[in-house]
């Protein structure tokens, strides 16, 4: 009986050595996996949506190939709601290979800003949840997740309508010039039209004006909108309703009282 027992002992020892070696080298493979992120780029789709592209480079310096590499990025608002998410799957990354991917996240900026109007004028922090899933050596599933925050710059930060300037046009109408200023903290240019509607204290529409705006990203904008208003309908108090129609989004009405 001694010989078979010794053979079993030997077989068990060999199996243990192989098992430990395999998992130790697999652990080293995870350690030697390089994940580098490039600078995100913003583009547009044909249907007018915004695409945030995040370049990612994966370098497999480990001992085993990596299968089913799945990279998911989710951007969440402060309330935990998902703003956008993108996912990229790479079937196989061979040993010593370097793979570059672009993780695209489609963002409907228009509906985002319609549903989260505070993002128009308030800077905030958005949460980014990164999830990476992979199978190492074809048998060990590994899942990693991380959180980060990204700064959201408001496109109309510190939006102000200055004191309107009035000048006579003729006996019945006045020209009202409304200076507009804001800081574009966003990472995109705000190019489009600004529309102002002027209402008097009885909620009557008394004037309408349009102006082209061109506010580069991370810059201050000063402009003005001119309106022709009937003298008889002007009251001491009232409100302006301001709309921005840009190539990326429309702001919806922003109400700013005057007087």
């Amino acid at each position, binding site marked *: 009986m001694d010989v078979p027992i010794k053979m079993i002992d030997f077989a068990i020892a060999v199996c243990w050595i192989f*098992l430990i070696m395999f998992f130790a080298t697999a652990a080293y493979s995870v350690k030697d996996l390089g994940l580098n992120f490039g600078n995100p780029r913003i583009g547009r789709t044909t249907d007018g949506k915004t695409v945030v592209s995040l370049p990612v480079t994966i370098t497999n310096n480990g001992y085993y190939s990596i299968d089913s590499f799945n990279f998911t990025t989710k951007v969440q608002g402060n309330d935990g709601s998902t703003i956008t998410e993108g996912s990229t799957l790479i079937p196989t990354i061979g040993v010593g290979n370097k793979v570059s991917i672009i993780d695209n996240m489609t963002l409907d900026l228009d509906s985002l800003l319609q549903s989260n109007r505070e993002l128009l004028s308030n800077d905030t922090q958005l949460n980014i949840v990164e999830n990476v899933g992979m199978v190492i050596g074809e048998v060990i599933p590994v899942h990693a997740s991380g959180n980060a925050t990204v700064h959201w710059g408001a496109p109309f930060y510190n939006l102000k309508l200055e004191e309107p300037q009035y000048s006579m046009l003729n006996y019945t109408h006045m020209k009202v010039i409304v200076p507009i200023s804001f800081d574009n903290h966003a990472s995109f240019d705000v190019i489009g039209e600004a529309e102002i509607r002027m209402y008097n204290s009885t909620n009557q529409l008394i004037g309408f004006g349009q102006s082209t705006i061109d506010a580069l990203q991370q810059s201050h904008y000063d402009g003005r909108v001119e309106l022709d208003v009937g003298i008889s309908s002007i009251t001491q108090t009232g409100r302006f309703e301001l709309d921005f129609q840009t190539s990326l989004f429309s702001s919806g009405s922003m109400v700013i009282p005057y007087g």
Partner: protein
Amino acid sequence: MVEDDNSSAFKPRKLMVKVLKATVKGVMFFVVYYVCWQFLTSFATIIPGLQQAVQIFVGVYISLIIVGEITAGTIYQYFFGVANDLFVISYLIFSLNGGTFSMMYQNVGLQVDVHLFLIIAMMLSFVGLSKTILQAIGFVSKKAEIV
């Protein structure tokens, strides 16, 4: 205690040899652990409590090897052998959290599915356990034949 040789003249000498063998085995195992640990030190900084967990495992394992070696030639050798295998099985289940290893490192959560490793390791341990039980049965049978 059932022993191979009941001659009292040889008892101290045999015991000395057993202790010596146990010491050599223990030291050899420790050297293997020490060499392997050099490759794992980089993980110790990432995985909190890894060194402590490995040290406890090695400590108990070496103790059981030494005790098993000292009691060699008796039925107790197999008791300690079985204890050793059961210890390995239970330690693997607890330390690997039933097959899902999770940890946090610098705001990154890592989850590794080690079910396959656990299953193979447990199978190997069970084979070892069965072998020890077979050895114990063989040992008792031999004694019965002698009597």
